[in-house]
């Protein structure tokens, strides 16, 4: 619908479209200025009343000139309105959308365009420390729910002329703004095109969170692992941009979605690069150990004790059998019960706010654990096994990955409990092959290992920063080198100037 020169007609359209008679949240402020009937429309709470009064209403009301049509529009836009961003729109639907996003609309009689003034000011959470990606070394800023703030954080960290931000909208009934960010030249055009297509193809009434958007744009919704990486850290988002990946920021979501990713991205923690390479490598190895424990320990323990007890040393086997002598349920049932209880405590701890959550976890683990052992419901060794595998799952840096591991842990436990080692191996082979067949924005999920692609020594063992010359295989092939020449242009032992 195109705007007309009649204010009355335009207002009739807005009244019908936005149900203005029923909707009390949209402020209508009629006034006389420039010798014309005018109307100011804005959403209560989304705009600053003070800004509107000072920089929109006052200049217009004080102007004594009497003009109409295009002249009135030019005068208002170029001379009178004092806001930092003033634009015009002929499409009424687009103008209505801008109004719902918090912009202020100025309608002038006899003018065929609608003036849009940016006077947005709404409450939101300030920039705080990350909730799920804490680091010891490294920045402590996290994204919040405001798209503008999040983009500012990125701009502040990545001051490059190649940093492109494409603003788009998603949602058919209630559209939400999102920003597709990438580094021009480094991010392949194919990646941008594919991601844009997927974002435009997300046809739902409303996208309420980044998680919802993630499910709409990922490659394989039935795959066991996430194919989109969500981060709440601007520094991490910037590092992905520099690697040639694309980042999507959704208004109202404190997580930036990164695509394409590989399984290795999910295993890497934010402060891996901030630490010296020896410490980073050590932490990664620990994390890998944690992942292995989380995935395999309960299943292998149950398989060994039930089906292959001869593998265990006699003393250990005796102690296991003695501790299980009074337990009335089978080892498999016991393990399944303990893992379920562990996940229950975890879920309850997450839902209960703040300190109470951690207290609940601690109390549940201590009281329930010792009570279950005292009541001879579970054996103490199994509690150690479940606790170790739980610790391992907490060591995983990505929450979605941790959830996936917990589900796979249960599947492996069932296979191990029913079919022993052959079952565990079958499910493990299935899982690895399934994950190997996964893709993230068309890129193989196990790359650069399978298929082998060029990469830095930065998958499990992390080499020093100056040995990491290459960008990821996900970047534009013409921009694979991170720097020209040596990355450490001096020798600590020489006294002469920098080397080329």
């Amino acid at each position: 619908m195109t705007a007309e020169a009649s204010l009355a007609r335009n207002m009739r359209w807005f009244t019908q479209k936005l149900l203005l008679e029923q909707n009390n949240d949209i402020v209508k402020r009629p006034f006389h200025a420039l010798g014309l009937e005018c109307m100011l429309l804005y959403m209560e709470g989304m705009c600053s009343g003070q800004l509107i009064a000072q920089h929109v209403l006052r200049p217009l009301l004080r102007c004594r000139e009497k003009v109409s049509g295009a002249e009135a529009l030019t005068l208002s836009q170029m001379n009178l309105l004092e806001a930092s961003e003033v634009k015009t729109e002929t499409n009424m639907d687009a103008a209505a959308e801008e109004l719902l996003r918090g912009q202020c609309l100025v309608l002038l009689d006899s003018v065929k365009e609608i003036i849009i003034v940016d006077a947005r000011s709404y409450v939101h959470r300030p920039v705080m420390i990350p909730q799920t990606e804490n680091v010891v070394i490294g920045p402590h800023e996290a994204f919040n729910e405001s798209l503008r703030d999040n983009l500012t954080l990125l701009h502040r960290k990545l001051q490059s002329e190649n940093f492109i931000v494409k603003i788009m909208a998603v949602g058919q009934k209630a559209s939400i703004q999102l920003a597709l960010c990438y580094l021009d030249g480094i991010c392949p055009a194919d990646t941008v095109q594919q991601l844009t297509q997927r974002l435009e193809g997300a046809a739902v009434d409303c996208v309420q969170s980044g998680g919802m958007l993630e499910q709409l744009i990922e490659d394989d919704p039935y795959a066991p692992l996430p194919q989109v990486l969500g981060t709440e850290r601007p520094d991490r988002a910037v590092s992905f941009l520099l690697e040639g990946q694309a980042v999507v920021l959704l208004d109202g979501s404190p997580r930036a979605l990164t695509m394409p990713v590989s399984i290795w991205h999910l295993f890497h923690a934010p402060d891996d690069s901030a630490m010296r390479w020896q410490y980073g490598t050590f932490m990664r190895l620990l994390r890998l150990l944690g992942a292995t424990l989380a995935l395999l320990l309960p299943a292998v323990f149950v398989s060994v004790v039930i089906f292959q007890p001869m593998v265990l040393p006699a003393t250990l086997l005796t102690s296991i059998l003695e501790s299980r002598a009074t337990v009335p349920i089978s080892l498999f049932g016991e393990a399944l019960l303990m893992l379920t209880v562990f996940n229950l405590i975890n879920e309850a701890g997450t839902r209960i706010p703040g300190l109470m959550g951690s207290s609940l976890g601690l109390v549940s683990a201590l009281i329930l654990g010792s009570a279950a052992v005292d009541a001879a419901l579970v054996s103490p060794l199994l509690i150690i096994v479940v606790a170790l595998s739980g610790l391992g799952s907490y060591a995983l840096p990505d929450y979605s990955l941790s959830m996936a591991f917990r589900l796979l842990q249960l599947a492996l436990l069932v296979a191990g409990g029913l079919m022993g080692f052959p079952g565990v191996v079958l499910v493990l082979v299935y899982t690895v092959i399934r994950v190997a067949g996964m893709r993230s924005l068309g890129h193989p999920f196990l790359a650069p290992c399978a298929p082998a692609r060029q990469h830095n020594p930065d998958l499990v063992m992390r080499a020093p920063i100056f040995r990491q010359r290459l960008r990821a295989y996900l970047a534009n092939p013409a921009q694979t080198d991170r720097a020209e020449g040596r990355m450490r242009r001096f020798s600590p032992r020489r006294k002469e100037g920098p080397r080329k």
Partner: protein
Amino acid sequence: MNTVSSWLKRSARTKTDIHTQAEEKQQRMHSLAASYRLLASVQIFTQLLLWATLWLFEEAVQASWQAMLLQIAPAILLWGLWRALPQRRLQKSSRWIRLLLLPCLWLDATVLFVPFVQFSFRQLLSWSVPWVAVVAGFIWWLTVATSGSHGVAFGVQQFKWLLLAGLALSLLTFSSGDPTRLFPFWARGIPATLQAALGGIGSMWGVALLFIAPRDARPLHESDYGQTKRGLRRMDPSLICLAACWLLAMVCVFWLVLCAPIGQTADAGVGEKLFVMAWRSSGVILFQISIMFWLFLLPCALAGTASFATMLVEEAMPRPPRALTSLLFVLVPVALSFLPSEAVMQVVRVALPWRLVPAVLCGGIILLVERRRKQ
């Protein structure tokens, strides 16, 4: 040494820096080809090892390693034939002709699946319930059906070190071998050796798999691997894979000859025979590692057979969905596993040497068809 390292680099073909879109695409193709070469290598190695463990060793102990040595001759001939095929995409009729290889894959799958069920469920767990074959078959089908186009190749690539490490650790028991078993050097004479070798001649049919998988056409850069002088012939990566499989199998057969208990497996079941590699292990850990080696090797090879079969069918007939193709492929070995395993393996054993015939026939016909097309 330089030549060896250049061969290895050439077989990996992925470490070279890339700077253009074309190079990037080529690297992707090389990596894919490398993954499939590894998958085909796993097939060849597993078939050789199964043949040696299940049939060769007990019947011709001293002739085993000589028979194994002779296997390289048909393998090289087959390699030469398939190598002569053009590297471009084959025409439709040639893709249909490649379906001749399906019976070979079915035989491979049966030889893998029946021992796997026998070894893992009947032998390890002492279960004889039929549903374990259904469950194992279901997971096998699910693996292939949901693995995407190249998931099996990429996934099996992840297990390569596990398999190699298991093999190496199992072979640690070499030291306890009995070298007198190698004498007399020519065992029971040349005719008996040839007879033993003929029984396993079909195990080498898998060479054809090295060529039905995606192939890499040329090096990324002219200067690649590149201390080689201009005009010097380089070894084909598929030949390196073939040589590696054969060498590994040779080592295993030597181990069997030196270490495995003779006479004790003559009347043993299929699954029981697979324990043969672990029987002389000096410790329980090595024993378990040997078992784990088979436990991983067989499902990986099983997934490979179904993946290759699906690939052949998909290229000839793109219409049937992957899930259906793989299901039809998996059903035959699963159904056969319900029959008495010894009887199945006896019947299959007669057919196994003949796997070489479709492989040669298929390569020859395709060569003729493609040559005629070129003319």
